[in-house]
């Protein structure tokens, strides 16, 4: 005959065991999701040096895991993104940055496209305007059917 106390203890044990079985809302993989998001954002701009063109955010390589840990620790210690970047470039050079820093060496790279657009559209404009000033006989005569042919889109 079990005493009341024993029964109480057994019930309590069951209750605790079942409580552990109850499915929970999954906890975030990291203790600090906001920090982790920042780690991933910075890591997604850093090259994994042992991989064939992957970021350290995406790579499973040992070095990538180590460097992500390094980024995490630096952010936890209150350092900012620029300091993390400086840390990486001090050790691995600009090669590790997927966003090339803007300096004399990369000026052409960053400004190039804008210059090309301006030169390209500018040239087109100049050529078209020059042509618009030419007399009609510089051109071929218009065919009668061409402008109205619905099949020419």
């Amino acid at each position, binding site marked *: 005959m079990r005493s009341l106390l024993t029964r109480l203890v057994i019930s309590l044990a069951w209750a605790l065991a079942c409580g552990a079985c109850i499915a929970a809302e999954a906890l975030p993989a990291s203790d600090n999701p906001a920090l982790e998001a920042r780690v991933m954002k910075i890591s997604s701009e850093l090259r994994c040096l042992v991989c064939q063109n992957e970021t350290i955010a995406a790579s499973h390589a040992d070095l990538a895991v180590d460097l992500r840990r390094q980024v995490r620790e630096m952010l936890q210690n209150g350092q900012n993104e620029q300091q993390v970047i400086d840390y990486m470039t001090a050790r691995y050079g600009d090669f590790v940055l997927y966003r090339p820093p803007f300096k004399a060496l990369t000026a052409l790279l960053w400004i190039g496209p804008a210059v090309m657009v301006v030169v390209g559209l500018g040239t087109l404009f100049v050529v078209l305007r020059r042509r618009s000033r030419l007399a009609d006989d510089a051109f071929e005569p218009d065919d009668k059917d061409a*402008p109205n042919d619905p099949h020419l889109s």
Partner: protein
Amino acid sequence: MIPEIGHFSLWLALGMALVLGTVPLVGAQSGRADFMAFARPISYLLFFFVALAFACLVASFVGHDFSVRYVATNSNTALPLQYRIAGVWGGHEGSLLLWVQMLVLWTVAVALFSRHLPKEVMARILAVMGMVSVGFLLFMLLTSNPFDRLFPAPLEGRDLNPLLQDPGMVIHPPMLYMGYVGFSVAFAFAIAALIGGTLDATWARWTRPWTTVAWMFLTIGIALGSAWAYYELGWGGWWFWDPVENASLMPWLLGTALIHSLAVTEKRNSFKSWTVLLAILAFSFSLLGTFLVRSGVLSSVHAFATDPLRGQFILAFLAVVVGGSFSLYAWRAPEVGIGKRFGLWSKESALLGNNVLLVVAALAVMLGTLYPLVIDALGMGKISVGPPYFDAVFMPLMAPTVFLMGIGPLARWKHAELPSLAMRLRWAAAVAIAGALLTGALAGEIRLVATLGLVMAYWIVGSVATDLWGRVHPQGLDWAQAPARLRQIPRALAGMMLAHLGIAVFCIGVVMVKAYEVESDVKMSVGDSTTVRGYTFIFDGIKELKGPNYVAAQGQMRVTRDGQTIADLRPEKRIYRVQQNPMTEAAIDSGLTRDLYVSLGEQVEGGAWIVRVYVKPFIDWIWFGCLFMALGGLLAVSDRRYRRAAGAEQ
């Protein structure tokens, strides 16, 4: 025996290609009809021998012939049949053979479908294609023979890279190569016209359908590659601006420019030298892409195994083909006239503006891709240029391009009245802004960059709708006549509208997923759940399973919404027996308005697993958009006037 037949067949093909590249050309220059008549039958023979070689390689794969080195390095007895066949193009040598196979396929297509061309033009075009084949066949036979034997023959192959053991692998390279190689037709038409001095509107009309079809294939090929990366690589991304991806994007941008430029040349017989240059450039960039991918010059996940000799050969080939073309261009293009007149503000100038922007975009991609190489070659250090650069540069270039896309179709040929154009487009502008803001609000938060992207997308939709409305109700509302008018819209025009809508759909996909994607990284034990955007993901544990050539830990995830189970997802962590690489297979539930994406991370203490859950809104619109673009191209090519032209021969 079979590999020997294949090898010998390639030599015969080379012989055919040499004849094709020379005899008809001589015939065209000297007016000898008998020489020119060689072109077609030799093309057919060339195709036959290449196809035979290709069949031999396929047979070697299917039959597990590991005495062939290429088969041994890319296959395995446990490899399922479809991947044995796809393994044919899994590595450098075999994919080259696929390239040549596509090239001769296009050559035969030109031989079959161009009976309306004058025989000199035909002869020259086929000769140019023959010469290109010579280059690739020589490259294969001298440096990359797929039929090289291995002594002693191993009993077991090394296996196809597990990443490639996937349906996407079966179809992505063939589609891509059809596109890349297809631009060789426009190239051949251009060279033939420069040689013969026959660069005119008719030339543009002939070239256009070939360019459109090649462009279609390339669109699908790139889209497939992107979709494949998305569901196969397990990191949820779909474009990384990797050098090999860029190598396919650059010809695509130039091909798009070419299609539009051909329209101007066809209509007005003008800007011919610009168009012919674009035709040369599109294929040149295909060749450049081939070089970048196979020479080891750039670091890429996609790059084939390389050696310097191969790189040198392709470079020399590139120099000869492109250098020769540019020399011919510099010599002949100045003689070409300026054609008919059109105004400063007109549909023609809108098309040319689009051209400039697309070409600049292609050049910007090339700049970013090659800049590290240039800096290194100059001894000034090593830098990387990756997604942050390309995203920052490419998006702003696309904005004015899309803006023009809305205006161009509505502008009149020859002379566009700007005020009336603006009036017509005011609805499109209003819809664009209102739609963008509304979409943002419905998505939960209005974001600036997202709104700008959506404005662009809806601007196109508004413009297409305005165009359509104008054609169906030209003089005010008239529903009785509407169906008839709708049917009267030429397929070429309908194709254009569909393709442009495809771009809008694509933009919406990109914007929505970039701005509104939600991710949840959690530790899950059996029974745990996590809820993201109203979807509840429940972890039911892990099942161990065996595949044909791998073992896997398969996660059992149930997804419910409002209590209803809507999906069962099975993400896997696989270990392939032969290569022993661990691989993540994400599980995706695709939907019209969102993808649910789950991938397994590592197992942690206590038996729980790290699981990554994403809800990606509208991500499939990225590839639907590409599909619409390709369908638009198909529709345009099926236009009556091309069938009429082809039928006129009969």
